[in-house]
């Protein structure tokens, strides 16, 4: 094992948005040299039952960048310990550990991007693919006083989904928020988007 002469990476932090988790740290600088970093993680089970066991990150063992996408490593809703060390040839730094364990239930959820269209009298929505953890709660209503709001759970991602058969001459509005079942949290709602159907309104 190389003698620890390299400084350990500092300022570890995790930035997590919509269940995509990025571990970041300040780079270790040795002029003219390429530093490689190794990232390892430990879930709550390993911490409690086998604390000597650390698991190499899927994508960053090693990596040259001072950041690591740990999304594929965080696969349970428990606190994860994360650590990083730098290497230069046979020189190895000490491990630097994230000050507070990271739990994915702290991720920031943003309103989803949606595309509301119509195909004749059919109201269709296309939602961005945020990954298998996401469900979309789609609320839609006919734009008129006292209109009832309908809610549909959509799990299809990245493909147009039929919402409603609209009546001629009417306008319909849609807004969406995401729900992430493994952390039991919603995102804020998106802005409402409306479409109008051609043709005269049907007599009541």
């Amino acid at each position: 094992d190389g003698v620890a002469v390299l400084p350990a990476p500092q300022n570890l932090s995790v930035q997590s948005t919509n269940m995509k988790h990025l571990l970041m740290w300040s780079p270790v600088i040795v002029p003219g040299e390429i530093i490689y970093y190794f990232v390892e993680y430990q879930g709550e089970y390993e911490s409690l039952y086998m604390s000597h066991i650390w698991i190499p990150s899927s994508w960053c063992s090693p990596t040259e960048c001072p950041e690591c996408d740990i999304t594929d490593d965080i696969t349970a809703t428990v606190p994860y310990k994360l650590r990083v060390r730098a290497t230069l040839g046979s020189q190895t730094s000490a491990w630097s550990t994230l000050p507070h364990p990271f739990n994915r239930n702290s991720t920031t959820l943003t309103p989803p991007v949606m595309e509301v269209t119509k195909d004749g009298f059919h109201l269709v929505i296309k939602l961005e693919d945020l990954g298998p953890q996401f469900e979309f709660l789609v609320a839609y209503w006919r734009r008129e006083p006292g209109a009832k709001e309908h809610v549909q759970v959509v799990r299809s991602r990245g493909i147009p989904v039929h919402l409603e058969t609209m009546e001629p001459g009417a306008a319909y509005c849609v807004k969406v928020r995401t729900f992430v079942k493994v952390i039991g949290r919603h995102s804020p709602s998106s802005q409402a988007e409306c479409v109008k159907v051609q043709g005269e309104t049907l007599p009541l």
Partner: protein
Amino acid sequence: AVLCISGGLPKPTNITFLSINMRNILQWSPPEGLQGAEVTYTVQYFIYGQKKWLNKSECRNINRTCCDLSVETSDYEHQYYAKVRAIWETNCSKWAETGRFYPFLETQIGPPGIALTTDEKSISIVLMAPEKWKRNPEDSSLSMQQIYSNLKYNVSVYNTKSNRTWSQCVTNHTLVLGWLEPDTLYCVHVVSFVPGPPRLAQPSEKHCVRTLKDQTSALKV
């Protein structure tokens, strides 16, 4: 059993189960380097947790490179192994063996049957759930829905005039697409799927139907 020098031949390769609606076919590739030789094959299967390898009499000394083990693996809650060896003259290969095969998880769900009827502005879609494989046509049918209670269908509708596609996830077997455009060709294809472990699913063929001409505009002429 055939007496032969074991290991005298290379083993068959790529041995796997191809399973669709619980029809479980063992298939393999011939051993390398024996082109032209009259190689035959013998198959055995094993139920995980039980004691002995069992023979499949219809697949003893066969020329083809597949063997239907649907009957032997019909209890889909069991797990199975199968193996095959090659025989040529007095030589035979060692056994080539599958991994553990779990029909309940690994069978592909076939597409539903689809019947479309149309009028001017709507298409009625009737879906027939895919059926579990059965030994004899006259045996009673078992729908895959009875095995997978959460079986759903993803119905994709393509409007050839607007060149738009949209889909709908349904669990029941009838669906009416209303307020369509008259005299327009719509194409529909349906995929069965079961939420849960990733399972391969076969999409149905594309079924196209044209909505009728708008009678009211026809009368105005």
